[in-house]
């Protein structure tokens, strides 16, 4: 029997029919067409499917679809504001902190959760927090540097992003 569930997805109300055996990852990718969240191992070891459920970082592959009824889900698709990249996304590009890119959405979602929890992490804290996100291309160093730089920028200018967004909207109008 399919379950008719309602949830908040990146701030928008969503209704979807899910099979009991579908994972949240399956629901996002196959039912809702949000393919930014990746499937790596499917067993909670690699972190590629990292998403937020009720403000808690989890692996989308380890949550059953029906479990998120009434909950708030945030994915990589909710990270940029329109054309304006999140500072983490910008610093990942600046540092070339990705090669094949499969792990990148998971790293970004996990790093954003870290900075919400701890805006001024040490390198060691970043490495431990992201220990559940595996990358087979970069050797991690560029990722760690991108997160540290994004954290520093976000601490200094929490409003800069809003201003940039205003400017872009103004220019567009």
């Amino acid at each position: 029997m399919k379950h008719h569930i309602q949830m908040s997805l990146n701030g928008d109300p969503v209704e979807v029919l899910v099979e009991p055996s579908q994972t949240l990852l399956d629901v996002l990718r196959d039912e809702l067409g949000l393919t930014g969240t990746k499937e790596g191992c499917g067993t909670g070891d690699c972190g590629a499917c990292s998403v937020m459920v009720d403000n808690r970082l989890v692996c989308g592959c380890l949550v059953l679809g029906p479990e998120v009824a009434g909950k708030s889900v945030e994915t990589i698709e909710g990270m940029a504001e329109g054309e304006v990249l999140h500072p983490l996304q910008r610093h990942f590009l600046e540092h070339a902190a990705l090669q094949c890119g499969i792990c990148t959405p998971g790293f970004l979602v996990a790093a954003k959760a870290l900075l919400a929890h701890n805006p001024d992490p040490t390198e060691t804290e970043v490495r431990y927090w992201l220990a559940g996100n595996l990358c087979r291309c970069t050797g991690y160093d560029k990722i760690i540097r991108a997160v540290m730089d994004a954290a520093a920028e976000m601490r200094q200018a929490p409003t800069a992003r809003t201003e940039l967004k205003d400017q872009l909207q103004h220019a567009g109008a």
Partner: protein
Amino acid sequence: MRYEAPETLDAAVALLASAGEETKVLAGGTDLLVQLRTDLIAPTLVVDIKNIDETRTIAETAGGFRVGAAVSGAELAEHAKLSSVWPGVVEAVSLIGSTQIQGRASLGGNLCNGSPAADSVPAMIAAGAVANVAGPNGRREIPVEDVILAPRKLSLTPGEFVVSIQLPARPARAADAYQRFIPRTEMDIAVVGAGVSLARDEAGKITDARVSLGAVASRPLLVKDAADALIGSTLDAAALTALDAACQAACQPIDDKRGTIDFRTEVAGVLARRTAEIAYKRAGA
């Protein structure tokens, strides 16, 4: 496969006791969903217990803390009072998996997964924790050391499930600790785990102790001889040597890729010493 998320204990018990169903209880799902995916299990009914209030709350009671079976590791670590009263239990559950796993993994799930190497279980056993169980014949309490009988085999009867874990009140000058050995720094399964909870008097003499070992037998062990080696001592060299010997004597480990019988046995003694030293220091602080 059917999925149900009852809101009451009675409804959950009725579902779990349904005739002709192969049922599984879902708490955080970090083991269950892996077993589903790898076809290790094929239940016809999954009962999600997280909509039952008692499974999701940490309550301070006259008798200590009642921790819901499905409260996540992250929530336990964020609970300042629980972390200060039972630091060993909280550090043990915090060792399970990554940040993502911590968002879901629970004491109840770690216990009922039935692994001899579960990190939180020796810590709960050392703490004297009791599992609050609900089932078709009502509720009962099972000391945590009596829940796992063998790998994946529990003492729960059909229809029963763990609703919450009762951690006792902490006497003065008492503390607990948990240490594990893994060949890397993060995210691995214990080769050996050791939990110690002890109380000391004003002069520093140990008045009460419980010692538990994980991953060195077919089930997590409560090692009474090891506790006896500590009680009455001030954790001097002789007591630590006796603790080490008692822990080694209790080991009945397997040889596998994580460690040989000899290695696990020796490490159990060393880890128990270190864990006892940490608990003793905390108890004096």
